[in-house]
């Protein structure tokens, strides 16, 4: 376990910023203590400083997970955000998409969101903007990338993709093994 280097920090914050914008500051400075990021076996973990001491005292081979895993660095040092970060993205998300109940299941299976399943979308969402996907009951389902800007979404036909799927909570069941 080690702190992130400059380059790594920049990559992580840039990715996070695509979904929550400047609210990253809220992630670091929280009322209930300082939180920080740590790297362990190519995965980025977000944890409170209280956990640091304990985590540090565990042998590196035995340490499996600390706090919340946000994502991992791929072999070519690109940062990939995982669904486990959803709890922190959802409250601070700047651009949100709500999905109709009928196509909730489809999104949870890993499919993209089509225009027919689109319930609401935040105004002035740019194309290829990072968005967080919610169900109509405001339950966060995952996140993705807007395939069309809000204006285009109104005009496009029902079978067109409006949100590219990136991660969804169904992965807890589908890909349980690869979470860690």
């Amino acid at each position, binding site marked *: 376990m080690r702190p992130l280097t400059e380059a790594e920090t920049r990559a992580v914050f840039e990715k996070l910023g695509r979904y929550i914008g400047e609210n990253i500051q809220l992630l670091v400075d929280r009322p209930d203590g300082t939180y920080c990021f740590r790297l362990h076996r190519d995965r980025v973990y977000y944890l409170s400083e209280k956990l640091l001491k304990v985590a540090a005292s565990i042998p590196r081979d035995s340490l499996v997970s600390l706090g919340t895993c946000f994502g991992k660095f791929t072999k070519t040092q690109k940062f990939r955000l995982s669904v486990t970060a959803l709890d922190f993205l959802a409250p601070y998300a700047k651009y949100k998409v709500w999905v109709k109940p009928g196509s909730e299941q489809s999104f949870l299976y890993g499919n993209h969101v089509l225009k027919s399943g689109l319930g609401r979308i935040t105004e002035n969402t740019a194309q290829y903007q990072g968005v967080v996907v919610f169900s109509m009951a405001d339950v966060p389902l995952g996140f993705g990338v807007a395939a069309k800007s809000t204006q285009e979404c109104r005009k496009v036909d029902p079978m067109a993709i409006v949100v590219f799927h990136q991660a969804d909570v169904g992965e807890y069941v589908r890909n*349980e093994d690869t979470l860690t």
Partner: protein
Amino acid sequence: MGRKLDPARKEKRGPGRKARKQRGAEVELARFLPPGKSRLSRPGGSAAAAGAGLPPDPPPVFPQNRRPAAGQPPRGRSGFSDDNSKLLAPAKAKKIPSKGNNMELSSDGEVEEGSWEMEEEEEDGSSDEMVDDYGASSSEEEELLPIEKAALKQKSDRGGLSEDDSEEEEEEEEEEEEAAAEEASRQKMGQKEEESTDLQLNLDIDEQFKLPTDEQIERETSPPDLHIIHQRIKGNMEVLQDFVVKREEGRTRQEYLALLRRDMAAYYSYSDFLLMKLMDIFPLPELINFLEANEVPRPVTIRTNTLKTRRRDLAQALINRGVNLDPLGKWSKTGLVIYDSSVPIGATPEYLAGHYMLQGASSLLPVMALAPQENERILDMCCAPGGKTSYIAQLMKNTGMILANDSNAERLRSVVGNLHRLGVTNAVVSNCDGRQFPKVCSCLLWGVLGGFDRVLLDAPCSGTGVISKDPAVKTNKDEKDILRCSHLQKELILSAIDSVNAASETGGYIVYCTCSIMVEENEWVVDYALKKRNVRLVATGLDFGKEGFTRFKDRRFHPSLKSTRRFYPHTHNMDGFFIAKFKKFSNAIPQEQKAATPSAVPDTVREPQTKKRKLEGSKVDKEQKPPQPALKKRRSLQAQRRPLKA
């Protein structure tokens, strides 16, 4: 498992509860029986009431009766749930002819529930024997001859009832164990006609459960006929309940018990070893309930994740999806029990969003006993698959710190998955061997942090409490497995105790729990911990559940073991569980039976238990007696820190 009632025919209903049930059946049967025999199936009726004589020849009637009566519902038999009545229906069906035999003697149109019940209770065993006879006859052709022989014989000696006769008859006939049942049934039939000496005759009949001789056992055909075995179990239990009266001369209790064990092993598919252990723990009627309960799965329960939702909202959301649920009970504010559901409970969007966790009801209890407070440091030594850890986190509201450890890396993946899904942020997951914890923590944790406030140890066990989930446990556990588990648990509990800081302001508690009902894994381990460390047992805070044993066979445990709790599938409808809560009152590790310092208190309390302890309790000098050299070695690090007493 109801009777196949023809709804088109509405029967006239007379007064009385039983009349409503059975009158209809009687009319049903009337369709099948020859007109003169319709009285046979009438229910209720005083056994003592003088009635008509037995119809000319009962045996030919009974085979006919069996088929239509197969649909009859079980009549208020205790100990068997409706789920089991499918298993037992054939036996019950065979019972009906015997009842029918009784019924026909009641006065017409009169239903006396009280006497009917009494009749049923008293003659349970014996009527089973009689039924057994017909069960046998249905399965083996050659039995017809003895039956007919029996019927003829009975007709001839209707007036007399003597055991000698019956035994003579039995000796004459040479076949399997049904002989006993047969002649008992013959006796029974004769007795029913008497009416006047009913009670006494009943007693006589019950004695007639004769232990089959060894030759008869050997001659038993395989595969064993489960109905026969079941009847034999019931008969055997009857005898054992009232052994002095109902025993057979010359046969010891051990023989009855041995036969019962063999039968139960065959019927419920247990290994003999496990059954012997269970017979030590449970009294016999409870044992049957326990075995039956293990055949049926426990209800599905979920725990609301209060970090993300409320139980009320979750219940509403699930009901909207088509799930039938109820709150778990007064003792839990987060539990819900699922009766049935049109959607898979483990895959609803609420589940995926982390609003609830599928968890057995009994797994909520150790965490409730642990009662973690906010901003504490908790260690969960065997955390997979993470249900208890996440419950701890939700009770702490994501404050403080939890160290979730498990020695099995495969299962840790589910821990990580569950913790992330449920939104637990204050947990560190590690993959250490639980026994290493004092070493791992000692240098840094003790020095820097000072140990944990509370420890939860859900020790790996033989799993005898969760047989309904994993029936393989019935056969694959033997003495070695239990002792191996017990040894591991003892090591783990010492490590757990050593990892707790007794001086913590809010804590200093260790909760030890297993999903097993074996005394070797539960009370024995707890007692061992009491002897070896400066801990004492405190109340778990759970007001229901059976108290743990303070003595078992030849072992005597510390009296405070009464505060531990045992839970059983048949009494609490949750998985078998054992929970003990310790409070550590001193960080010092007592050397072998050292008397001085804090360990003086437990020593004096435990002195009455063994003479050895008394002797050593008074000694001041430390005795270098190493009963567990391995343990001593591990503690040598701590020992060096302490000044040795000369």
